[in-house]
């Protein structure tokens, strides 16, 4: 009797539910049922998924766009395939001569197309015949523009500064329209060198200072007020906006210490910026070393420093290196800190050229990629002649920063293999 009741209940309940929510009758006890909760569940999943993929799409678009436009500057279609000129030469003014006749024709047709467009808009909707006529004319004009554009590109002359000066005959201004674009010729060699120098110098400084601080914090410091204060200040340091670091570096290194706009001022400013990340990460890596390593070593009569040197640091090294180089790679991308401290918009000498004393090397400004990107994208117009430089610089910069990150990963793998635990 009891069993029968249960069976009945079991059948009844889902049946009632179904009648409320759906027209389909369940075929068995566990068949799928419709409910509001399920709809919510599904839609939340889709929402989260869409948002995530949106991020990927945006990031992918950003990178592909830069890669596509930038690759025009870096790569070429002929034999070596890499535009060494762009990667090694100094930035120069680009001198452009466009054939005047074609240019005149082009502007004429363009203005015609413009007026036709306006006319089409002002037409009444009944006047379809006229509209058709206009649109065919516009089409024809557009084709003509394309044809002329190809001709223009074929006949135009572009020179970098050096080439322009070497010319025996400048093209006659009766035949050509003459324009100049700053920074758009030549290459970005000095900026690549400058950024590399800045990055390596600041890595060296930041790593030394950061690791030493981290050793003290993780191994020697005693918990208490002062330690809290130190941690708080590190936390604060990581929250300071980069432009403030730039101003600080400018005030302290450039003006007060009188180093001028120089490599060394840039190094210290960048290093200071990377310090919080490096200290925190190094300290974490050292704390992660098992207590047994330290105890075992100390019990064998090692002094504290010996213990740290032989049994803590080596095993913390993979973590320290990775996070530090990642931190530096991020900082290397900052424009603000080097804007006032180390970067020149244009410098015609490479860092090692024309030095009177060797120490002068440290006290000279350099060109740097992030600052160069800022200059070429804000100080010169955007058009087909300047775009190459803008996107080419951005792509090279991305590749350099990316290769830093990659090298840190490889380095970690290697060091980890050596000091496995």
């Amino acid at each position, binding site marked *: 009797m009891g069993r029968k009741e249960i069976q009945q209940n079991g059948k009844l309940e889902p049946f009632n539910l179904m009648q409320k929510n759906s027209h389909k009758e369940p075929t068995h006890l566990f068949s799928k049922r419709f409910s509001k909760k399920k709809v919510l569940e599904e839609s939340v999943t889709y929402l989260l998924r869409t948002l995530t993929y949106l991020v990927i799409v945006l990031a992918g678009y950003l990178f592909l766009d830069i890669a596509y436009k930038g690759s025009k500057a870096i790569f070429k279609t002929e034999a070596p395939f890499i535009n060494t000129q762009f990667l090694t030469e100094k930035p120069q003014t680009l001198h452009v001569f466009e054939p005047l006749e074609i240019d005149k024709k082009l502007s004429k047709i363009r203005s015609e197309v413009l007026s036709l467009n306006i006319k089409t808009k002002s037409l009444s909707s009944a006047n379809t015949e006229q509209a058709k006529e206009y649109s065919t004319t516009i089409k024809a004009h557009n084709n003509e523009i394309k044809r002329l554009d190809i001709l223009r590109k074929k006949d135009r002359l572009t020179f970098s500064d050096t080439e322009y000066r070497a010319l025996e005959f400048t093209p006659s201004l009766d035949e050509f329209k003459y324009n100049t674009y700053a920074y758009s010729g030549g290459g970005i060699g000095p900026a690549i060198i400058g950024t590399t120098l800045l990055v390596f110098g600041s890595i060296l400084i930041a790593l030394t200072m950061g690791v030493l601080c981290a050793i003290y914090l993780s191994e020697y410091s005693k918990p208490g007020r002062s330690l809290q204060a130190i941690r708080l200040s590190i936390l604060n340091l990581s929250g300071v906006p980069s432009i403030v670091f730039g101003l600080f570096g400018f005030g302290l290194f450039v003006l007060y210490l009188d180093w001028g706009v120089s490599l060394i001022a840039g190094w210290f400013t960048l290093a200071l910026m990377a310090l919080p990340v490096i200290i925190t990460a190094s300290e974490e890596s050292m704390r992660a070393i098992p207590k*047994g390593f330290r105890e*075992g*070593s100390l019990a*064998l009569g090692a002094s504290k420093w010996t213990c740290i040197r032989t049994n803590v640091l080596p095993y913390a090294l993979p973590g320290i290196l990775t996070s530090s180089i990642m931190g530096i790679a991020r900082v290397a991308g900052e424009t603000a800190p080097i804007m006032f401290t180390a970067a020149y918009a244009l410098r015609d000498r490479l860092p090692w050229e024309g030095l009177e004393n060797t120490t002068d090397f440290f006290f000279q400004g350099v060109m740097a990629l992030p600052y160069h990107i800022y200059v070429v994208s804000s100080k010169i117009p955007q058009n087909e002649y300047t775009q190459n430089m803008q996107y080419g610089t951005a792509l090279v910069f991305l590749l350099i920063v990316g290769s830093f990150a990659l090298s840190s990963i490889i380095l970690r793998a290697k060091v980890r293999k050596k000091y*496995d*635990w």
Partner: protein
Amino acid sequence: MNVNFQTDSKKSDTPSTPKAVIQARDLDFSYGDSQALFNINMDIHKKEVTAFIGPSGCGKSTFLRCFNRMNDLIEIAKIKSGTIKISDVDIYDKNVDVIELRKHVGMVFQKSNPFPKSIYENIAYGMRIQGIKNKKELDETVETCLKGAALWDEVKDRLNQSALGLSGGQQQRLCIARALAVKPKIILMDEPCSALDPVATAKVEELIHKLKKQYTIVVVTHNMQQAARVSDRTAFFYLGRLVEYGPTEQIFMNPENPKTEAYVSGRFG
């Protein structure tokens, strides 16, 4: 309880025999505000195995770690009163170099902690940090120590492989060998077999028995049978106090204190 006594200790048990290498007097020890050891008096005898037994948290490990000042590593730990003398030197005196002390008093930990280096480098570590670079001397010591720890035959063909590849028991014996390399006189063992299976435990115990001829050994153990098997003297700790200390035979067969009797017969702890 079926216990094999391997002891041949003499039963002279006056407080300060000339054989005593470690002498603790009226030792009070605390972690911050909580006192861990109360008024401990103990003489540990030369070239004997002394076992500390007692329930968890009774202070036996703390007491052991006083002997090589490993408690120094703990910020809040400190000796409130009393002295510990090793070979008649107060080891908490200002003039004591902890490094020299730790070379004299080696230690093996509960969890085997070989360094993630090769077997060879693990043994050589203690000498390398003393600045010994002579390859021949290192080779010799590594071999002697591994032989001393009864590990040589098992690892002689793979000295350059990572010590982490050894089994748990082998790792623990490696740690003992590593401690031997700095030529200590006293070896402290903090529950050396607690993570080992019975076969590995038997090997370590055998080793302890062998090392007794040359070294003074102090073993902390949870395992009463182990204490009975390996030690000449046994100290029973309870709640930070030394309840009873005497020849192992006496502690296990004929304890004076009812607490001791209850513990060794397994009625609590």
